């Protein structure tokens, strides 16, 4: 998985490419731990992300909880596989998906 980070004012934009799974989820977790304190809002671009496993969902949930107290978290460009994962797990009701 590749993480592309772009700080735009107080909004942190992170684009992910590849697979957010058991092996790669700790990489995103570390990136967010290092960067989220300085951000008021978070945008996640999933345009080039293939899928998310439960390990990735855990990281997203933690990020969502951290950002809900601030300017919020948005998820962009979700593909069909990931959309279904969000639907069946109930994440679709909670996350802001655009």
């Amino acid at each position, binding site marked *: 998985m590749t993480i592309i980070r772009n700080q735009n004012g107080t909004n942190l934009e992170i684009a992910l490419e590849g697979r957010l799974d*058991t092996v790669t989820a700790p990489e995103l977790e570390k990136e967010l731990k290092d960067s989220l304190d300085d951000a008021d809002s978070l945008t996640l671009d999933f345009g080039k992300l293939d899928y998310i*496993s439960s*390990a990735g969902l855990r990281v997203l*949930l933690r990020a969502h909880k951290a950002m809900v107290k601030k300017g919020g978290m948005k998820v962009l460009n979700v593909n069909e596989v990931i959309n279904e*994962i969000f639907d069946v*797990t*109930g*994440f679709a009701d*909670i996350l802001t998906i655009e």
Partner: protein
Amino acid sequence: MQEMSFSAEIESIPDVTAWIDEELEKLGCSMKAQMQIDLAIDEIFSNIARYAYPDKSGSVTIRYSFEAASRLFSVAFIDQGIPFDPLRHEDPDTSLDISEREVGGLGIFLVKKTMDEIGYHYRDGKNILCLKKTI
């Protein structure tokens, strides 16, 4: 039928998916089904890597087969670790707000939702978990 053994460690997962993906691509599997199978491998293999062999190392044998007529692809995960039936766990309550519930148990739930069939049995000291998906 093809079979290969892997070390029961998280680090083996990319090797397992690469091996299965190569076959799925040959079979003309849709990208969506391939991603769902890879996701299932991640969930099942990571569970085995974490829990099957406490305090010692072990291996997982992966066996796949394909029925051309029905286009049904099967993957079995076989380990000799402690007996564990992941299907006996109750599904998480996805109607609860996620801020109120634990994300634990979601992995096997995702596998149940995306595969056509999932079966478990314990025989001759082995956990055998089999997934089936039309590709």
